[in-house]
């Protein structure tokens, strides 16, 4: 199975996110529209087309979750304000989700904060440090 197919399967299994084939093309770890991909290849600018979809372990990137997280149907956790602040600071949060170890899409109200990893007892923030600073400095 190709890398982009593996990623598409993974986000569908984990979060129920289905990306329409005709709209998006995954090449390696980048996500771009089909038309942008075709034109980018033609003009040899693919490396600057779209944005990173995932890391080398196929874990979705913060940008990907921010852009497509609203399509998720499962493994979503809504936090309260104090928990959201702690999550944004990069702190782990003790919660009982009744789930095994897995990645969770973390929300505050209807806003997607980013990805968290739940190890069965605590939820660890996967929001990149630079983005955490952005939230802490600008929002909280």
């Amino acid at each position, binding site marked *: 199975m190709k890398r982009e197919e593996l990623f598409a399967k993974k986000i569908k299994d984990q979060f129920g996110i289905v990306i329409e084939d005709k709209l998006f093309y995954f090449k390696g770890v980048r996500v771009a*529209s089909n038309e942008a991909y*075709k034109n980018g290849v033609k003009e040899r*600018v*693919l490396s600057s087309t779209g944005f990173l979809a995932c890391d080398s372990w196929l874990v979705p990137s913060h940008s990907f979750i921010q852009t497509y997280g609203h399509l998720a149907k499962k493994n979503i956790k809504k936090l309260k304000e104090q928990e959201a602040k702690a999550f944004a600071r990069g702190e782990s949060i003790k919660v009982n989700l009744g789930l095994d170890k897995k990645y969770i899409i973390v929300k*505050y109200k209807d806003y997607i904060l980013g990805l968290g990893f739940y190890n069965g007892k605590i939820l660890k923030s996967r929001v990149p440090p630079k983005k955490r600073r952005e939230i802490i400095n600008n*929002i909280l």
Partner: protein
Amino acid sequence: MDKKEFLDWLNSYTDAEKCFAYFNKASYFRINELKINIEEFKKRSILNYKDTILEEVKELEDKIAIGKTWEYFLGLIHPQSLSSALVAKILAPKEHEKVIDMAAAPGSKLTHASALMRNTGYIYGIDFKDQKIASLFGNITRLGVVNTSIVKGDSVKIKLKDYDKAIVDVPCTSLGSGPSAYLRWDPSHSKKISTLQKKMLLRAFDNLKEGGILTYSTCTYSEEENEQVVKYLLENRDAKLLDLPFEFPRDKGLKEYGKEFSKVARIYPYHLNSEGFFIAKIKKVSS
């Protein structure tokens, strides 16, 4: 240049005191329709805002920095002046078209065009400064734009063909951008920079297919950077000025350039309570 000299100069175009009275009075944001539709935004956002002549652009009523809101962080909104948002709206790129942005960073017009195209088609954005490109990347990622390639380079030298539309928002003396811009300006700056503006406009025009359309825009008032640049294109290529697709408060182009220039928009701060701008819509006709 001191303020009196500048006011005298600006008075040759419009009411200068009135322009100063309206500078920087309002702050605007654009709802990013790639991430949220306007009705949904109205239900969810806690910001206080007023409607404007453009459905997707709102005037912020709260005394807060737009960049410090949840909505900004999540890419639901982008700070953009009302005048600036008119550029992509006037160009009106359609789904599946190919668009070139000749001076893309920081990406307000490019990301607006992407939203109008619903993330389909293709936008080729060029800029030449690393720092500006970094902020452009930040914006396209935050706003969820996936139909765009960003290229570092000299837009005058990059030759492309058969593009449907072009955004030509050129570097300018920015006299419309704020009340103190004139302090670092004298009329010779406009003459110098207009050479680059003419080259960029011609290059963008040559990148279009026959029937292709571009918008030429600046955030300044001097005719050397506005009417003269457009006139240069009309004299050197098979180009035609188009009527603006909708009405809004504006002045027409300067009369001495002919009746045709009534189709361009000179926007002064008091027209829209926003930045000063010049916008022309131009079509490439069959040779």
